[in-house]
C-alpha cells in the first residue's frame, strides 16, 4: 500500500512543480498580451510582436535542423545495438532515432515549402504607422 502513496506523492509533486512552471509561463504570456494591447491602443507596436513574425520561419527551420541532428545522432548511437552478434542489424530500437530524424526533416521541408508565401506575408508592413497618426 505504501508504494501507492509513494507514486501518488511523487507524481502529484511533479505535477505541482510543472503546474507552477507552466502557470508562470502562461502568466508571462498574459502580461505580454496586456502590454501589446496597451501599446496598440497608443498607436505603437510591441517590439517583440513585430520581430516575432519575421523570425517565425527561421525558428521552424532551426528547430527542424536541431531535431534532425539529434535524430541522426540517436540513430547512429542506437545502431550500435545491431553490431552485437546476438541481435539483428536493424530493429525497432532504431525508432528512437528515426522518429526525431523524420520530424526534423519534416520541419525543414515545411519551412522551405512555405517560405515563398509566408515570409512575404509575415514581413512587417512598410507603413506600420497608422494613417491617422501621420501628420
Amino acid at each position, binding site marked *: 500500500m505504501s508504494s501507492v502513496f509513494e507514486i501518488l506523492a511523487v507524481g502529484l509533486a511533479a505535477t505541482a512543480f*510543472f503546474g507552477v512552471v507552466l502557470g508562470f509561463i502562461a502568466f508571462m504570456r498574459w502580461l505580454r498580451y496586456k502590454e501589446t494591447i496597451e501599446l496598440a491602443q497608443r498607436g505603437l507596436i510591441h517590439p517583440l510582436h513585430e520581430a516575432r513574425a519575421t523570425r517565425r520561419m527561421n525558428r521552424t527551420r532551426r528547430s527542424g535542423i536541431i531535431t534532425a541532428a539529434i535524430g541522426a545522432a540517436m540513430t547512429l548511437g542506437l545502431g550500435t545495438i545491431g553490431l552485437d552478434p546476438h541481435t539483428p542489424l536493424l530493429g525497432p530500437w532504431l525508432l528512437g532515432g528515426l522518429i526525431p530524424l523524420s520530424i526534423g526533416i519534416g520541419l525543414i521541408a515545411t519551412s522551405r515549402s512555405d517560405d515563398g508565401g509566408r515570409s512575404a506575408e509575415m514581413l512587417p508592413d512598410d507603413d506600420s504607422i497608422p494613417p491617422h497618426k501621420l501628420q
Partner: protein
Amino acid sequence: MIELFYHLAMMLVFGSMVGLVLTFMLVMRAIARREQIELADLMTRGVNNE
C-alpha cells in the same frame, strides 16, 4: 487489490500530467487568439485616444 490501487494511482498521475499540459496549451492558445482579435479590432476601428 493493492495492485489495482497501484494502477489507479499511476493513471491518476498520468492523467493529471496530461490534463496540465492540455490546459496550458488551451490557455496559451486562448491568450494568442484574444490578442489577435483585439489587435484586429483596434486596426479596424482605429486608435481614437489622440
